[in-house]
């Protein structure tokens, strides 16, 4: 197991290297440097700026020094937000993004698997059809539609929840736990909806398969109650596809958070990424891509390891 863990971690290095290299060279493909658009920059000043940001060195050298900095957690200065380094901006945004991301993941897993189990237990009955219809809707309708529509219903037509804004962990003392919770409800639910849909479908499918298997029949024949069969036997086996889906799920949540942070004006890294992309803040965009990519790669490994630990059918190679 330890060897397998090490192997998986090492295999992530080439992937991360490819990601950083692709991001770096794509950014350098951009027509014009980051300072060419600025007015009234004399050639001497531009040369100085380029020297300051190492842009006057050969591309290969730039890449190596960038790589070295990234390994130390230094993504360079932000080209647009002059007073901040990219690492500072990312560290500011990360707690926000992680809070809504983790909350949405927990919500999606708990509600999604609950709905999936319910549908599987009542296969081809009205509960099943209802859950699957909702799941179809959740998969089809993207969160940049559900988020504004739910804002309209719950925050504008009914004044139940705030339309936007971030209270944050620091704001709990000032504005109370209630305000903190209420500010989270809409972003977390809209971020989780598509994942709830996918996870419920996935759980339903694997649950139906497991419920047909021999060991469940044995448990039934033993006279165990349905709830005990589900809790003690079926869930454990049916959870395997769910665990291997957690990696892609977190990737999808990160992507979704770009939209959610924009709609609810949450100061997370998704927000920085989008504004950085719109302002051509190359270093910021690259920094965020690298952080996102590392997160996704790391979470995929975590999901793989969990699967290897829990599923006896997985062989470690």
């Amino acid at each position, binding site marked *: 197991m330890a060897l397998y863990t090490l192997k998986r971690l090492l295999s992530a290095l080439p992937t991360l290297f490819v990601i950083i290299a692709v991001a770096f060279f794509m950014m350098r493909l951009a027509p014009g440097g980051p300072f060419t658009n600025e007015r009234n920059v004399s050639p001497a000043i531009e040369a100085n700026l380029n020297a300051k940001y190492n842009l006057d060195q050969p591309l290969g050298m730039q890449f190596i020094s960038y790589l070295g900095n990234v390994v130390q957690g230094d993504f360079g200065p932000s080209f647009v937000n002059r007073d901040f380094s990219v690492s500072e901006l990312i560290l500011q945004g990360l707690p926000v993004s992680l809070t809504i991301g983790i909350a949405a993941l927990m919500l999606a897993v708990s509600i999604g698997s609950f709905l999936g189990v319910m549908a599987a237990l009542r296969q081809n009955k009205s509960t099943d059809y209802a859950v699957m219809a909702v799941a179809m809707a959740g998969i089809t309708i993207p969160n940049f539609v559900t988020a504004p529509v739910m804002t*309209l219903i719950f925050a*504008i037509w009914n004044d139940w929840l705030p339309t936007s804004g971030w209270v944050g962990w620091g704001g709990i003392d000032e504005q109370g736990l209630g305000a903190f919770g209420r500010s989270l409800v809409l972003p977390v639910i809209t971020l989780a909806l598509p994942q709830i849909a996918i996870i419920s479908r996935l759980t339903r499918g694997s649950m139906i398969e497991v419920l047909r298997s021999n060991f469940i029949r044995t448990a039934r024949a033993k006279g165990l109650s349905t709830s005990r069969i589900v809790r003690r036997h079926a869930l454990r086996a049916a959870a395997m596809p769910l665990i291997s889906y957690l990696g892609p799920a977190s990737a999808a949540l990160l992507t979704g958070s770009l*939209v959610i942070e924009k709609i609810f004006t949450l100061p997370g890294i998704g927000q920085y990424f989008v504004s950085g992309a719109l302002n051509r803040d190359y270093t910021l965009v690259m920094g965020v891509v690298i952080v996102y990519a590392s997160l996704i790669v790391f979470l995929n490994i975590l999901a793989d390891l969990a699967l290897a630990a829990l599923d006896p059918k997985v062989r470690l190679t």
Partner: protein
Amino acid sequence: MNTISPHADQHPNVRAMQSAGDAIKGRSLWEDARRRLFANKAALASMIVLFLVLLAAIFWPLISPHAYNDVNYSAYSVAPSAEYWMGTDVNGRDILVRTMMGARVSLAVGLIATMVSLVIGVVWGATAGFFGGTIDNVMMRIVDVLYSLPFVFFVIILMVIFGTSLWIMFIAIGAIEWLTMARIVRGQTLSLKEKEFVEAARAIGVKPLTIVRRHIVPNLIGPVIIYVTLTIPYAILAESFLSFLGLGVQEPLTSWGVLIADGANGLPAAPWALLFPAGVMALTLFCFNFIGDGLRDALDPKDR
């Protein structure tokens, strides 16, 4: 002496058999699939709705009394009425004609990006599957690595670098979606290659290229069509996602993503500017999904 006629096809019995054969003929895979598809009510209704959306997208902007970029400051945020069936946005632009213009752009992006992914995916997957061995290993390993990349972010970088042109968007979205297509086509090719009917064809001396053309490709078409129908909504979603963030289609041109972003921004004043475009988009996506599911049921002979 009972000799076998050299013109067996002219023997009355044979002719009778042939005409009987004609009568029960016409159950080719495709005809069968079409019958099953049309028997599927959700898929049939979806095809009709989608056709209507397509007609409206093509013709409504031509016959509408309002132009999609007509700014009318005396009629901003007008609720749906006889004059403006879907109301106007905060700039006084007619939502109906804008939604239909958006449909043109979104559907075009969906179709063209899917075609891009189809071409790359089929060529890549069929090559890997047909040659097998090392070539297959290397090619599919590349697909695996690309799969683990957060591709949306690279699309965004592309849009940042090359500007937000429609062509970049076609290519960029097509470049994300081809991976799954390549995997499906490769898997199909690999298993088809080993099928008995291919072996039989090989045994009677059919040339490899003819085998590919007559036996492999027709059997690939089914899964590919299913996946194409399911890719189109994803491409539309990707376009809308980028446009929503302001990284896709730019004003004055519009798309569903742009309209939804505008609608969300103008929210307390003009909810219809959000709800109608969002509704039409959701309806279209539903239709594609139902048709895809219907095609899967119709074309999968194992599921009969």
